[in-house]
């Protein structure tokens, strides 16, 4: 298989994997299988997948350095945009049903109140806002235009991920196991990026020498 075909296949798999939870959610919605509190179910499920894809997008860089494969880097944009799509849907359910879009004036007042008074909504909204310019500038054109600044701008993913996890931790009533699992994974992913070359170098040297076939090397 040519490198181009391989990359195409990897992207197709990401699309299928990322669209499946949404398809299942739509199937549940259409068949009335969202449980006693359907709006909450939609919000929770979309929120869960937002965080999962956000964390997955952060796994790809360490995966590349640990494995030596280059294809994970080529998938970051697709995974990141899917994460943002889930975040937008999650936010949309809140706007439409929690704030009640049928009464826009009151909804706006309620949004303002929520943003000021409810810290978990403040940080969730901030995460969405931080990721907005990233989604807009995700195209090749913007990447070329912004040159080095593009990389700096896209470091916003780190605070956005922290805020996203905090959003989850703060809305849970008591049982923190799940949000703390996300927090732990995020902590590992962020610590990996911490500038301590000695530690990272040691881990990378300790891994078995890559045995990837030659064709993988050409996949860039």
């Amino acid at each position: 298989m040519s490198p181009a075909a391989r990359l195409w296949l990897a992207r197709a798999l990401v699309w299928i994997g990322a669209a499946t939870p949404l398809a299942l959610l739509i199937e549940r919605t259409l068949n009335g299988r969202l449980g006693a509190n359907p709006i909450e179910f939609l919000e929770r499920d979309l929120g869960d997948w937002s965080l999962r894809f956000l964390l997955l997008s952060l796994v790809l860089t360490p995966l590349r350095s640990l494995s030596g494969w280059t294809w994970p880097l080529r998938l970051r944009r697709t995974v990141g945009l899917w994460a943002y799509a889930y975040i937008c849907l999650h936010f949309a359910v809140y706007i439409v049903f929690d704030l009640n879009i049928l009464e826009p004036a009151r909804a706006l007042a309620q949004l303002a109140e929520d943003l000021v008074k409810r810290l978990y909504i403040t940080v969730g909204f901030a995460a969405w806002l931080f990721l907005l310019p990233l989604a807009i500038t995700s195209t090749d054109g913007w990447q070329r235009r912004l040159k080095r600044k593009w990389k700096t701008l896209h470091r916003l993913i780190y605070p956005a991920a922290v805020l996203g996890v905090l959003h989850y931790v703060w809305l849970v009533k008591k049982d923190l196991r799940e949000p703390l699992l996300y927090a732990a994974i995020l902590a590992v992913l962020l610590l990996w990026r911490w500038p301590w070359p000695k530690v990272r170098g040691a881990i990378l040297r300790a891994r078995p020498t890559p045995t990837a076939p030659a064709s993988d090397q050409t996949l860039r």
Partner: protein
Amino acid sequence: MLIRVSPQHPIKPSEITPESVHADRRQFLARMGLAGAGLALAGCSDAKPPLPSGSAAAGPEAALPALDVKKKTEMAGNEKLTPYDDVTRYNNYYEFGTDKADPARNAGTLRTRPWTVAIDGECDAPGQLDLDTLIKPHALEERIYRLRCVEAWSMVIPWVGFPLADLLKRFKPNSRAKFVQFFSLADAAQMPMIKRGVLPYPYREGLRIDEAMHPLAFMVVGLYGKVLPNQNGAPIRLMTPWKYGFKSAKSIARIRFTETQPETTWNAIGAAEYGFYGNVNPEVDHPRWSQASERRLGELFRKPTLPFNGYPEVAPLYAGMDLRRYY
């Protein structure tokens, strides 16, 4: 009283599909291999699925015996009842798990017979009563109450039970009985999630004696005319409709009269978020979310929350109290 008139149609009872088979129809279809891709795909999502309506997963309560209800009172402004399936599949009962669908899945291990309730503390006639002895002197009545959870969702439920005051008076509380404390059962053998220690157990709740003696305070042994399902707090639970749901202790094993304000579970672990009173109050927000509105299960949009959950008759209990301080 309900008078049953036999229907005129010719279907004999023997021809009707037994409830258990009807409730099992999805599993039946699945076994027939007709459920198809829907079920196969469902395994891909690890979001916890709510139990499908009418599925056999929560089957046992379909066979719960009917109760002899002497009187029915509508006390929720004629609002639409929350369907039985939702009332029994969306529960907060942390002893059986913290997900709303967990109690319906896990509460089958709760043994509700034999069951004794211990009554002690500041009273002249304490004792250990077998559940049937405890219930027997009381005529069961149905009351339709609103239920407002502190998490800002709500239901309308036809409970079956009797006034709490009638029960408490039997034990002759003395002049030092200023409060009543309720203890839920805490048996790790029957309640698998107790070991996780999300809350300190046993679950404890409490009322001021005048709140407990208010005619709205209700001891519940059933819902929808049938025996209370385990996940809803069988065999006997409290219902104080003007307070957030956490005040209404489930599966009560002990009642104690006290002179000082007793410790209550949520208040003990988070006093800033859960007060001793727990009265429904749209003016006083939970520190992390608003209490001004609620999501009534079955409705798409939120609706305004009413003071005392729409039971203004309890307001005199709190005359002169700063309800922002005593939340």
